[in-house]
């Protein structure tokens, strides 16, 4: 052993800068969380963090974080079988929507559930929105911030993709009557549906991640815009002023030369910019680099990258096991318990942990804080795989491991 460490030694060690662990909860032994985190403030003033699990057997978990030093699991639910995962959820007031994606087309439940969570210990199912079908695996992501519409990444019974990897598209679901959700509009990438007049888009030559939306973001400040990450299709802005008939305004395609899987397109509303992230989907650095991009969106039809979020070099993390690269960011959601900033970005990087960046100089983002937990017990990758993050209005960070580590609550010192 040298004073510098082996990759396994590195993976075992917690490293941090300007972030301090307040508490850690392994979520009753089911510490694998997907990419759905949202915080509910209940009518009696409790703060409940809702987490969608990465995979079966668990569906979602509610953690009472009113006392952040002592988080308590108050509800944990099961999926009906091992062939479905929830992965994504959102909360507005006392209503929660949860996505369901199946492993194979044609399976069920595929789509979305709507719950009444006014008593968080006992979520009550209000309705199920069925998106199953012979070519559908259901829904991967939900975006629900206005209490009226869910922006859903989903397949449907009537959608026939031109390529098997393109099985999901953008669906706008009207949930103003939560017991009867109905589709209000839809959009798919030109050429991905059989019968389209456009030719199917070109496949990525190295990693065919597909043409499907990942996160679809719509904010109350701009109800006429949807910011859509479309995997290998890159970043898109859609005009959704007519929900029944969304139109593409712009599409920034950067893969190839990059390795696809555009994951999030977040507008920085006060700055006419976007923060775009890729998702690293391969272990051991195979699809490196997977980046966070700062993009000039002041000319909406001509998106131009300005910089990327600086990360430690690949060789420092690549041998620790699992994935290393960009994934989710805190998405500046509206709501009473959400941090909002166009200058401080908090993102997750799998075995690179959770990292915060000051992008006030958009040409030179600075990393200002990070926390990389040591490998959790029973981690199948031998390293932490930080998957998603929520930042509350007090700048406390709630971040989760993809497989085993559960929830880490952190405080920033910046």
């Amino acid at each position, binding site marked *: *052993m*040298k*004073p*510098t*460490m082996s990759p396994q030694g*590195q993976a075992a*060690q*917690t*490293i*941090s*800068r*300007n972030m301090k662990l307040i508490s850690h909860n392994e979520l009753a032994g089911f510490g694998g969380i997907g990419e759905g985190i949202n915080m509910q403030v209940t009518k009696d003033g409790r703060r409940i963090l809702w987490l969608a699990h990465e995979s079966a057997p668990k569906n979602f978990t509610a953690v009472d974080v009113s006392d952040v030093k002592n988080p308590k699991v108050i509800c944990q639910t099961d999926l009906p079988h091992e062939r479905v995962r929830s992965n994504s959820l959102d909360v507005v007031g006392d209503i929660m929507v949860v996505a369901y994606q199946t492993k194979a087309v044609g399976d069920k439940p595929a789509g979305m559930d709507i719950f009444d969570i006014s008593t968080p210990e006992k979520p009550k199912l209000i309705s199920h929105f069925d998106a199953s079908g012979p070519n559908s695996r259901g829904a991967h992501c939900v975006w629900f911030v206005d209490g009226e519409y869910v922006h859903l990444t989903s397949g449907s019974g009537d959608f026939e993709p031109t390529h098997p990897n393109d099985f999901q598209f953008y669906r706008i679901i009207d949930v103003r009557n939560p017991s009867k959700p109905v589709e209000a509009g839809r959009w798919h990438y030109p050429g991905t549906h059989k019968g389209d007049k456009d030719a199917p888009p070109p496949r990525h030559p190295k990693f065919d991640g597909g043409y499907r939306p990942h996160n679809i973001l719509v904010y109350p400040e701009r109800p006429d815009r949807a910011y859509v990450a479309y995997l290998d299709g890159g970043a898109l802005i859609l005009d959704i002023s007519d929900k029944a008939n969304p139109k593409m305004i712009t599409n920034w395609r950067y893969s190839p030369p990059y390795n696809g899987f555009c994951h999030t397109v977040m507008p920085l509303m006060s700055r006419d910019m976007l923060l775009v992230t890729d998702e690293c989907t391969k272990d051991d650095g195979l699809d490196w680099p997977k980046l966070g991009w700062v993009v000039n969106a002041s000319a909406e039809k001509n998106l131009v990258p300005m910089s990327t979020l600086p990360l*430690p*070099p690949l060789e*420092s*993390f690549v041998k620790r096991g699992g994935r290393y690269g960009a994934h989710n960011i805190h998405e500046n959601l509206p709501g009473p318990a959400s941090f909002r*900033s166009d*200058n*401080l970005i908090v993102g997750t990087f799998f075995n690179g942990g959770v990292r915060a960046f*000051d992008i*006030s100089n958009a040409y030179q983002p*600075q*990393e*200002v*804080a*990070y926390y*990389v937990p040591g490998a959790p017990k029973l981690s199948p990758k031998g390293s932490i795989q930080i998957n998603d993050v929520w930042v509350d209005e007090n700048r406390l960070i709630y971040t989760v491991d993809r497989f085993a580590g559960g929830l880490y609550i952190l405080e920033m*010192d*910046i």
Partner: protein
Amino acid sequence: MLDALSGKFPVSVITGFLGSGKTTLINKLLKRPDMNRVAVIVNEFGEQAIDNDLVEVSSEQMMLLNNGCLCCVLRGDLQETLRDLFVKRRNGDIIDFTRVVIETTGLADPAPVMQTLMTDDMLLANYRLDCVVTLADAVNGIEQLDTMQEPVKQAALADRIVITKSDIAGEETTAKLEARLRALNPQAPIKRALNGEIELEFLINVGLRNVKGKLEDIERWMGEPDEHGEHHRHDEKVKSFSLRFTEPMTWNSFSQTMEVLSTLRGSDMLRVKGLINVTDHKGPMVIQGVQHLFHPPVELNEWPSDDHSTRIVFITRNIPRETVANLFAAIGAVTETA
């Protein structure tokens, strides 16, 4: 939006006269359990530098000690060593240190070490000077001050002074040295240490750690209050004085005055620390300089007390107080409080 100070790694510089016991002091510090997660940069792993039973693992350049402290040898220049430590830490190659301690050589002028932290963008963004500690040997200290330039400068630049070997020198000699040092640098608290034993608290958390502007933090950083305004001493060349202005000044007034001073007399402006009341700013502007160079100013969130006057402490060589005061009046158009 972000706190300009709180996220940076504090750096303590330990300097001292030849034979003043820096190695002994550092050795004692390295044994303390509360010195874990500290990266110590030393000049060499000398024979008596570090007890073998402390060392957990080592290479030619680095040692990990069993209290979790990392000790590394200065390679090339300090700038490179500090950059390298930061990068290795971020990559997770070494321990997650939270503080850096630098040992300088006995003949070193501490000014360039301090300036390194102010001039390199990468270091400026990630480190902050916490404290300069100067060790003075009670046996030889007075003679060293009389005959050499370096000890005078080391004492003048210090935030904290530690007198060593007072048991050998005896009370009378030690008291003389202490008086001499106090006159040379009245702001720096002085303590005596035997065999390198000194409370860690005396040596750390001197620099401002955040922009909250708490009174006790500012008092600790500015040093001991200076009631007389100007100190004359045995060595007439080095002077310490402070200026106070009640009225706010524009940033231009301040910076132009300082620019003229540092252009003409930079090498003789040994150290400057201050809180500036700048027109139209809510909190005071914290300034600090070492000879020609100034750290970028940092605005505190608020004033630490009702006293909103500008206070600047100068330690200079051959620059009288009135010269500086006159410059502020002539260039900055601000005059001192009557």
